[in-house]
């Protein structure tokens, strides 16, 4: 049941930068429209240069759109807010503060009137949540990459934001660490039902975590090609992911998009300006061969389920 304005709602979002020559402008993305409902986990997938991080920065209030606007948690985004916490790609911890000190800095910003003990207890609670109790006195330089990112997650969660923004949070980590952090995010999200907006370039990560995957065409002048609904069962784990019936059709659909269609659509200037307001919603299933989905891009039709909403069809 798509609402006209979601919990997060991008309306005609466009961002242009002055190009390197200084004379012209470079349009990174143009006329983006999308909604994310409260409690939903949305992922953006696209190639480098399509402006994924710029969208996140605009949503965080660190950057401003050239045209259009974005609404988050019922408020027009005009600048950074404690309602929206960011988990940065490069953890962005203050190296002179301990793990606890980093989280405390966030907590004391959220609750300026709290006593030291209250701030400390609250920060410890979130460090415990990401299993870092015992390492709270360590400085970031003494923590491993995964532990640093855990502190980043604890810092973001500790301010109890209404929206959690993640900018390729695990891309700098090795595969094993990434996996355990993904499990962590699933557990936290199952507990909090937090609204999350995440950038990734990892298809499996998107399928594991997201309810909804926004596919972006290649930049410049990138746009949202379609919105893929993740039809995998809600209770999914990393270990079981590849055994789920609909996993391969979904995965193939995403990869096929990244490999060929993201470029083809950008060249063909698809979707047209009319189609951008309501990007097609797609639920790839085994009923269609991966290539079939290319043929069924419902470019002019707008909000159309390209494939059958069949969660029960198995690959067998």
């Amino acid at each position, binding site marked *: 049941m798509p609402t006209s304005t979601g919990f997060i709602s991008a309306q005609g979002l466009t961002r242009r930068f002055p190009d390197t020559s200084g004379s012209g402008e470079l349009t990174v993305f143009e006329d983006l429209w999308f909604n994310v409902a409260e409690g939903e986990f949305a992922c953006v997938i696209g190639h480098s240069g399509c402006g994924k991080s710029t969208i996140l920065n605009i949503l965080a209030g*660190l950057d401003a759109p050239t045209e259009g606007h974005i609404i988050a948690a019922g408020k027009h985004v005009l600048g950074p807010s404690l309602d929206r916490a960011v988990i940065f790609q490069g953890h962005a911890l203050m190296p002179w503060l301990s793990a606890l000190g980093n989280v405390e800095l966030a907590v004391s910003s959220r609750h300026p009137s709290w006593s030291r003990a209250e701030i400390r207890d609250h920060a410890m609670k979130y460090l415990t949540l990401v299993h870092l109790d015992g390492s709270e006195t360590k400085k970031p330089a003494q923590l491993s990459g995964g532990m640093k990112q855990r502190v980043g997650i604890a810092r973001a969660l500790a301010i109890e934001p209404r929206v959690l923004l993640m900018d390729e949070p695990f891309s700098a980590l090795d595969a094993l660490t990434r996996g355990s952090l993904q499990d962590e995010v699933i557990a936290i999200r199952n507990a909090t039902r937090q609204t999350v907006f995440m950038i990734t370039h990892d298809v499996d990560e998107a399928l594991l975590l997201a309810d909804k995957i926004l596919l972006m065409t290649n930049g410049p002048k990138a746009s949202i090609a379609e919105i893929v609904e993740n039809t995998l069962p809600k209770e999914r784990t990393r270990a079981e992911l590849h055994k789920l019936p609909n996993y391969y059709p979904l995965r193939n659909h995403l990869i096929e998009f990244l490999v060929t269609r993201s470029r083809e659509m950008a060249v063909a200037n698809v979707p047209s300006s009319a189609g951008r307001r309501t990007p097609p919603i797609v639920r790839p299933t085994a009923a269609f061969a991966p290539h079939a989905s290319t043929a069924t891009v419902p470019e002019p039709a707008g909000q159309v389920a390209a494939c059958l909403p069949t969660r029960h069809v198995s690959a067998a």
Partner: protein
Amino acid sequence: MTQNWLGLRAGLVSLALFAIIVGVWHIATAGTGTAVKMDPEYAKLMGATATQGKSAMPGPAEVGAKIWQHLRDPFYDKGTNDKGIGIQLAYSIARVGLGYLLAVAVAIPVGFLIGMSPLMSRALDPFIQVMKPISPLAWMPLALYTIKDSGISAIFVIFICSLWPMLINTAFGVATVRRDWLNVAKTLEMSPGRTAWRVILPAAAPTILTGMRISIGIAWLVIVAAEMLVGGTGIGYFVWNEWNNLSITNVITAILFIGVIGMLLDQLMAKLQRLVAYAD
């Protein structure tokens, strides 16, 4: 273990070098014995240089004795031209301290302003570029004319020479604070004051402290020259006064004290530097 061993060996080499330097110094300044036979009364008038081939340059034993004498009674005061070396050093340290603290009070806020505002950075840049290479002593006549107090003029000269390294380092440190950290501060809705205090200051502190360490070194170099000009008190005046007295022993003693105090000031700043350092 190996670190300790290395330290021990280095210490031994230092001691050996010290012994060699003192030995050479001793031999170079020792008398060559009776040079010319002459009437003892006349020889007294001629002095040791003429009669025994002894250099006017004091040997290590004389300087050692002088140092010991100064250390035993550093704070006596027998009038304008005869004060203990402790008093003279205290005057110099006080002047350096005052001028330096004034420079800190100006350089750090202004450095923050320059570092945070590209407009102010560009606007103030020509002034800094012109003022920075001016020898601090060149300000002395101007200071004497306007302030009309030699003591305060010396402090002003210290102020002006300590200012630039701190100003430039603070501005650089503040301007190069990592964008990520500033973005964190923004998303946490931290006020500009809180961001400056909790994020920018600790982030830039190692760079600022480097500037402060350079400044204290320059200030200690300049105070000797400044006090030679303004006179009255201070270790610089002491050196010049003893030169006028032709007491090379006292001059060498003062030089050694100046070196030791300079080293202590530098060590103090190094300690502070370690306090604010962070591993990234």
